[in-house]
């Protein structure tokens, strides 16, 4: 362990904390956000408002490797089942804010939340 190691590690930890705060601790305006399900054929195959009380709804989309099932719940969405080999999309879990999407690469499915409010942060810019 040398001095440079500690400086590097310290810098990276701080950068990580800053980025994490930036992403996790900003409020989401659910009223003006939408859930988008994107398939290979259609960039906006399904569009739902993010905020909806007591909804548990399932949408199935089909892609090159089979079916991907998306569950929409109150203010959040996830992929609950998929025919892909690695199931990375399922392991992502729920998303409830604009930013990182849930992607099933083999099946060419993308599930994400988009904010209609230009003041919201969709990505760091």
């Amino acid at each position, binding site marked *: 362990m*040398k001095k*440079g190691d500690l400086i590097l590690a310290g810098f*990276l930890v701080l*950068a990580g904390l800053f980025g994490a705060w*930036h992403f996790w601790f900003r409020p989401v305006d659910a009223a003006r956000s939408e859930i988008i399900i994107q398939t290979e054929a259609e960039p906006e195959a399904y569009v739902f408002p993010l905020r909806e009380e007591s909804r548990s709804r399932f949408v199935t989309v089909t892609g090159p490797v089979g079916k991907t099932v998306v569950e929409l719940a109150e203010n959040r969405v996830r992929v609950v089942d998929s025919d892909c080999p690695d199931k990375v999309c399922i392991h992502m879990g729920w998303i409830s804010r604009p930013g990182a*999407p849930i992607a099933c690469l083999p099946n060419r499915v993308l599930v994400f939340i988009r904010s209609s409010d230009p003041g919201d942060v969709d990505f760091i810019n």
Partner: protein
Amino acid sequence: MATVLHGIEGGIPLPFVIPGVKLGLANIITLVALVMLGVPFALAVALMRTLLGALLVIGFGPTFLMSLSGALLSWAVMSLLYRGLGKHLSLVGISVAGAVAHIAAQLTVAALILKHPGTMMLFPVLMVSAVITGILVGITAKYSLVSLQKIYSR
């Protein structure tokens, strides 16, 4: 000539290819190759393990692009740091930088493939795990090198 022979010999650890692309453990091989065989051979090793990984496990789709970019960027960063700042950084620091470069490249490629810049928001979380695996990789590389150098200095 001895260096060339060493290089070929050094190519043998390749069956090590772990489908742990996500964990970036494969950087152990690149780092050890970097120290023992030098920058160009380390690049060859990194490329070969990426190709083998694709042939044997993951296939040549978008995942391959991601692992290739990760392997290349982490090789480049570790090579630069090893040759430039060897005084101030131990192998642990170099491998942490390599691990962060690895996931940064993979994430960027993923964001480009998906055409969704929001993917980059995963960066802070991934970076923490990259630092942790980087530390583990660095420690493992350090001890591997000690053993390997004992074997090779007949």
